[in-house]
């Protein structure tokens, strides 16, 4: 009886192990663009975002990033990194406040909170001066999420102005 039980357990291991090995997270990303359109409807100003792939200088665009974990295991240490395209400037305060939100001014080499994003310039007299970066100088946005459970998803967004 004991021998039979051992054989069953042994065989069960080979049946279950591959299934466990197959389990993994699989986050799928989608990104879309919409432009801000202001309409006057019955004397009221209505602002809405309309999907577009065209933009004019000075126009406000919103980038929406949807993420969904189609896998069967929780994804951990999820980092969504989005470089702000050249020719666009980030609109302050427009990024979704989800997880840990940080920004970069050096092309994604370092990320910090806006108040800690500083850079140094050299004055004409040779002295060094530290300045806080303005939102127009942001090059990347990053959201860090502790985890995304299997079968779940959400979205983050931010707005830019076309230069």
């Amino acid at each position: 009886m004991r021998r039979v039980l051992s054989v069953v357990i042994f065989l069960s291991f080979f049946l279950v192990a591959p299934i466990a090995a197959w389990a993994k997270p699989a986050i799928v990303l989608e990104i879309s663009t919409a432009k801000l359109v202001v309409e006057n409807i019955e004397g009221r100003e209505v602002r809405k975002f309309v999907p577009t792939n065209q933009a004019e200088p000075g126009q406000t665009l919103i980038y929406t990033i949807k993420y969904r974990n189609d896998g069967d295991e929780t994804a951990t240490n999820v980092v969504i990194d989005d470089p702000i395209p050249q020719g666009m400037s980030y609109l302050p305060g427009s990024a979704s406040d989800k997880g840990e939100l940080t920004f970069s001014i050096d092309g994604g080499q370092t990320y910090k909170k806006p108040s800690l994003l500083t850079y140094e310039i050299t004055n004409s007299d040779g002295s060094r001066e530290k300045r806080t970066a303005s939102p127009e100088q942001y090059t990347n946005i990053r959201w860090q999420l502790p985890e995304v459970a299997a079968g779940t998803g959400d979205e983050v967004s931010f707005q830019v102005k076309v230069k």
Partner: protein
Amino acid sequence: MKKRAITSRQASQAAIPVMPAIRTKARDPDGMSGFGASEVATQLQTGKSKKKGPENFRARARPLQIEKNRVIPARSRAPNGVSGFSVLREIANRKKKRSSMNRKVEKFRSRAGPLPAVRSPAIRARSRDPDGLSAANVSEKKTTERQLSKIKEKIMQKNQLQFNGPVKAIIGALALTVLVAFGAPQAAHASTAAGTKLTNTVTVDYKSVGNVSYSDTATVTVTVSLVEAKPTVAFVSQTPVATVASPTDENTAVAQTYSIYSNSNGSEQFTINQAGFTATNIGAATGVTASSTVWLGATALTTKATASATVYVPYDGTNDGEILTNSETTAGRGIVANDYVMIGGTKYQVTAIDETVGNGLAELTWMQR
């Protein structure tokens, strides 16, 4: 009462306590009012106090002369602006506190009994105390030393507040000034040229429970469209120049030159018409003799415009000495040498174009005009 000025040295030696209210009114270096200073001077001269009866003022003052041979600096020399008397009082207070601390330490030392002849391991450890205190007294001494160090810390903090307070305030004001002076925003840049493709690629990195790394990306592209804008037309010159004193001769052709600058972000065609021309006492004008249509364009700069510089613009893909804008594909509508370009209202003339620099860029050299 005889009024006479008093020196700071005399007042210090007299060691008369001065009330803060009087110090603030005082013009005397030690902070005494005119009345207080003259009174002390009189007392020093006569040896009598007119206010307090026959008691000799010097006799009252002597016992207080704890710093007899030391001249207390005048108010102006004190870093926190206190008078010599205040400094004297502070010194006396510190001496008092120091002696109080010493008394406490001595008290603990006196409590320490002789070490026993047979030492347990614990006592041996305690016997290493340099003051030779007993086991119980060692811990008590440590507690007191902690308390004393806290008192010292408080005194030091108080001193720092007194002496450094004004300095800190000045530094704060300077920092604010620096922020206000250097906090101006940067100048705005020119608009993005029509046809520019702005690509956004987002990346997600994540890990499985077993710490295996995964990644995914998504991309979207937005194309900048042309925004039509009214051009800027301006009179440039007239040949020959006609003035009231020297009018143009009859039967002489006059050439007037106008400039037209596009304000849009891409290639646009403009038609030039002669309108609103009124001929008075002259023959019919020939009107516009040059081309009646003109193509103007716009492109993007990769570097900031300066008075004389070499800048880079997007390469149009054909090395023909002409830079077409992103939305334009027809030759003859781009930027060529000797063309003028306007950046932020400043006029530059293109002196050379090099389309062989690579990296999707063309080199454009210009000079401010």
